[in-house]
């Protein structure tokens, strides 16, 4: 079957595809998944290079920075100089007088617009500022330099207010209120989950571990900085060019702003230029987008706002920081009995998706391994810090850091090998977790075994070396967080057999376009370059809830497949009429309609289509499909089958710890995932490699350093995102379980790569030198201080508890 398959592929695909690797996927014999991969697929499963890769590599792709419109003005935003202050007065008169300035706006000049899930964030602030990131005024001018100069001419008088930067302090009664009208700093978002009886299970447990972990601010570091252009036409219909992961929801948000301006019945069109990375950062609409709209409305000209790197660090959102208390217990045999977690999340001054990450944290908390009794509670607390957003993994990396570090501690407390402990508790196919997740396919045990094998669990370790593991569960078949989890596809095929696919999906570099093209080509028996995927314009692309939750391959893929199937039906029908054969006998392959019984009758697809088009009463073929999966919103009790299927994985890290400096080196890394089916192993590995590197940065080096609410390192010199030179050897074994609901069996894999990285590394460090670091990032300072503490060295100059320096005389 394989040889047969591969020869066909060779004739069908571009020369960049390397057949050799196909074998590798199916080569995982002893670890192979529950079901056999499908046969007779040609383009699905191939290492097709990303569409438009050459365009990107040669600098032709148009990013927001490359888009200009005739008469366009340049907008700039003035940010707060205080973390918390009353705005006494804003004098914009000098700025307005500057030549070239067209519009100056402050919070007093704009209608009531509230951004975010909690509707607590106006695009320009009036009355008071609550963080350094607060937008207090905006300018549109004929030139960016003039706009910049105008900002300097705006005089804002502030009256400083007492501020709060620590969420635990902010929870206290007498803490300064960030939003007075809200009456408390604790958000009214009661994240609470309880099933089983945790207290009883605790009494029964043979082994219990309990500890506090923390995760700090990190940021997405998209190479393409943010930007937006707003353009009203003569009739006040609005076009917004923006880097967004949520074109349809952004359209709705922008429509809200248009309505707030008093414009009724207007259209909003969202156009996405090429997006230079997103990772969740573009899942909400931001002040700069709404400000561009407001400026454009007043200027009667298109207005573009572009962020520079510093602004990107200061005025886009971070990953949600968290303080996590966790207790877990197991019986004598290592079976998990309970998990009890309380979290405090620093919400920052405003609310975006960061505050809703507990909804996703619940997934690993309730369902990573089998746990009968679970209690979870999280509070989001306003502070005068920057506010958090969605970021790859959406809370899962934080929760998994606490869970998997604690699992390691528990395994050791129970005297059970950490790999074995995980195997004992691993989720299995076709089980329903107490939170109501219906697991269909599940290759977790296989992932654990594969990683233990590849990382060399049984090899002799040198001094200072250690191995650590951590597993993950993530949504792999969409996630119903909104009322709809759907995605639409429109499709047309022209006279030459070339297909235009209009999808709701968003490609932001991850390869959504390529995967969709592969699925459609496969279904219609076409070549990859016969498929043109259009995903950039809400005027022509159907609705989609957004590129989040690792859902695009699964949801947009199923949607595209649905449309392709309908189109195929029509093609087969006209072929059967033209060839006068039974439709059952017709196959589409290699740009032909094929009749197996009499190959003489085979007809070129283009010819067939032209014949149909240019006959009296002619017809052109088109199809549409809207796929909304059969998954469930979480109920009031936070139970429900959030996703059609779940992705599982295990990571293993082999590290070396320099005991004199505390520096951690990763010698090799294995990240095995049950992906259902690899539609494109190359893109899939790319997601895993990138995810792992992001996870290593999260584990070891990255931190947005805030001091009293101010970001101290808003640049790549001091924000330690890892570089190409820091890459480590990564193996990414792909395990295929062929999910019954996935397109050709696929599950999502966009986020998992960075989910269990930090705990795998933390566990490896413990294995190496016997110290457990519970706070991210795991800096050499923290490791060295812990080593000294462990050795009981009177570490002169260091307070082992605070890690602060003291006088040693």
């Amino acid at each position, binding site marked *: 079957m394989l040889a047969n398959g591969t020869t066909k592929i060779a004739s069908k695909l571009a020369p960049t595809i390397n057949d050799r690797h196909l074998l590798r996927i199916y080569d995982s014999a002893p670890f192979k998944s529950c079901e056999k991969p499908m046969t007779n697929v040609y383009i699905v499963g191939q290492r097709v290079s990303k569409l438009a890769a050459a365009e990107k590599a040669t600098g032709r792709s148009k990013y927001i920075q490359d888009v200009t419109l005739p008469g366009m003005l340049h907008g700039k935003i003035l940010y707060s100089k205080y973390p918390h202050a009353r705005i006494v007065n804003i004098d914009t008169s000098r700025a307005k007088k500057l030549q070239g300035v067209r519009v100056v706006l402050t919070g007093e000049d704009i209608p009531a617009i509230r951004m975010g899930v909690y509707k607590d964030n106006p695009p320009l602030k009036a009355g008071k500022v609550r963080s350094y990131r607060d937008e207090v005024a905006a300018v549109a001018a004929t030139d960016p330099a003039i706009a910049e100069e105008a900002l300097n001419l705006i005089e804002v008088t502030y009256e400083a207010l007492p501020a709060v930067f620590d969420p635990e302090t902010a929870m206290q009664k007498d803490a300064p209120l960030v939003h007075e009208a809200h009456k408390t700093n604790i958000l009214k978002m009661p994240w609470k989950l309880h099933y089983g009886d945790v207290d009883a299970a605790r009494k029964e447990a043979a082994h219990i571990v309990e500890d506090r972990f923390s995760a700090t601010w990190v940021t997405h570091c998209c190479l393409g900085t943010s930007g937006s252009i707003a353009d009203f036409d003569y009739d006040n219909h609005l076009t917004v060019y923006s880097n967004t992961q949520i074109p349809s929801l952004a359209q709705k948000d922008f429509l809200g702003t248009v309505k707030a301006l008093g414009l009724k019945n207007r259209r909003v069109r969202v156009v996405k230029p090429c997006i230079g990375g997103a990772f969740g950062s573009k899942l909400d609409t931001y002040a700069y987008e709404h400000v561009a709209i407001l400026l454009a409305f007043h200027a009667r000209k298109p207005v573009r706002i572009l962020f520079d790197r510093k602004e990107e660090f200061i005025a886009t959102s971070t990953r949600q920081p968290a303080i996590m208390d966790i207790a877990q217990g197991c019986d004598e045999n290592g079976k998990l009995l309970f998990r009890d977690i309380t979290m405090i999340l620093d919400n920052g001054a405003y609310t975006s998706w960061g505050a809703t990450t507990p909804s996703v944290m619940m997934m690993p908390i309730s369902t990573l391994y089998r746990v009968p009794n679970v209690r979870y509670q999280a509070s989001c607390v306003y502070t005068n810090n920057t506010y958090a957003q969605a970021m790859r993994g959406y809370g899962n990396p934080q929760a998994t850091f606490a869970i998997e570090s604690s699992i390691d501690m528990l395994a050791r407390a129970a005297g059970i090998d950490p790999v074995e402990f995980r195997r004992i508790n691993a989720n299995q196919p076709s089980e329903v977790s107490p939170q109501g997740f219906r697991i269909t396919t599940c290759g977790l045990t296989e992932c654990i075994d594969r990683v233990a094998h590849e990382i060399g669990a049984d090899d002799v370790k040198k001094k200072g070396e250690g191995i650590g593991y951590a597993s993950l569960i993530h949504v792999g078949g969409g996630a119903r967080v909104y009322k709809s989890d759907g995605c639409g596809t429109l499709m047309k095929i022209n006279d030459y057999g070339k297909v235009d696919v209009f999808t709701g999906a968003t490609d932001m570099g991850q390869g959504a376009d390529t995967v969709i093209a592969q699925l459609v080509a496969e279904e219609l028996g076409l070549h990859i370059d016969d498929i043109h995927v259009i995903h950039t314009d809400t005027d022509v692309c159907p609705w989609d809830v957004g590129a989040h939750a690792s859902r695009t391959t699964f949801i947009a893929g199923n949607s595209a497949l649905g449309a392709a199937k309908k189109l195929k039906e029509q093609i087969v029908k006209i072929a059967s009429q033209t060839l006068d054969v039974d439709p059952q006998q017709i196959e589409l392959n290699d740009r032909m309609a094929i009749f197996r019984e009499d190959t003489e009758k085979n007809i070129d697809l283009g010819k067939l289509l032209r014949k149909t088009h240019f006959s009296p009463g002619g017809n052109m073929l088109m199809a549409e499909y809207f796929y909304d999966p059969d998954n469930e919103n979480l109920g009031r009790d936070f139970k429900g089958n959030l996703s059609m299927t779940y992705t599982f994985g295990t990571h293993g890290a082999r590290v070396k710890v320099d005991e004199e400096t505390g520096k951690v080196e990763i010698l090799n890394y294995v990240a095995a995932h049950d992906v259902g089916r690899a539609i494109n192993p190359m893109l899939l590995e790319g997601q895993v490699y990138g995810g792992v590197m992001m996870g290593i940065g999260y584990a070891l*080096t990255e931190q947005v350093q805030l001091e009293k609410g101010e970001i101290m390192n808003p640049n790549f010199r001091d924000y330690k995102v890892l570089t190409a030179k820091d890459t480590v050897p990564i193996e990414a074994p792909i395990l295929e379980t062929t999910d019954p609901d996935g397109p050709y069996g696929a599950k999502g894999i966009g986020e998992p790569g960075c989910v269990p990285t930090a705990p795998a590394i933390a566990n490896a460090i413990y294995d190496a030198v016997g110290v457990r670091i519970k706070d991210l990032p795991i800096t*050499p300072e923290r490791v060295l201080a812990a080593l000294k503490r462990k050795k009981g060295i009177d570490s002169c100059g260091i307070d082992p508890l605070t890690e602060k320096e003291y006088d040693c005389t």
Partner: protein
Amino acid sequence: MKPFTYLIPKTLDEAISLFESHEGRSAYIAGGTDVLIKIKERKLLPDYLISLKHILGPDRPLLNADTKELYISAFITHRTLERSTLIQRTYPILHDAVKNIGSVQIRNTATIGGNLVNAVPSADGAIPLIALDASVNIYGTKGMRSIDLIHFFLGPGQSVLEKGEILTEIVVPPLLPRTGGAYIKFGRRKAMELPLLGVGMLLSLDEDLATCVKARIGLGVAAPTPIRAFSAERFLKGREVNEQTLTEAGQIAADEARVRDSIRGVAWYRRELVGVLVKRMGFTCLQRAGLKHGDSEDV
């Protein structure tokens, strides 16, 4: 970024006269990797940038065959030094430093002179050069003067350069026989990184290949300027170089260091690093001192 006029003099005198005629509104630029950042951050707002990169001069480091002095034009790039076999073979301490500055792109444009004149305590190029006892030649309206590099730095971003003066050349005196040198930049990642601590060390051994006849220890980010650990150097001189003496030298150097807390790292940790890295560089020096020139190897 504020616009500026870019001027391209061909000689030192022309550069200085341009500087003088735009006095107060001009700055020199070599590779621009420090100066352009300052302009972007509005810490410097010159109307004229006077390029030093087109001034004619040697395009590579040169060893004077008679005096065994090494001459490095201030205007050559880190990349040129990195790729020079002379530097690789004879001055591995400098090679260790320049090969890890920024990235290839940065090293292709940034100059060694700019690195010194910028005068930050983290300058990777400066630490090995002070360990090598280098001096610098400075040209100005009053002619040429020379000063030991260790006296060149006055504070963060400050040097002895007078307005309009140009650093033209770095001179490294001859090495003693049986000398080994090494530099380490300790950072959080492998590229695009300023040192959390930099240690450059040079040991010259007696014929027994064990006794230290001369020691130089340069420290970066251990004080407001690049410094030498004089007490540790004095301690090593005349002693056998081994685990014990190097550990002790490390401790002495750590005590001498005037480290402080910053957002990039805490003082106690930097002090720890001084001790550990001085010891480690000592071992590398020991090993390299025993090698014949040409037996290049990596740290």
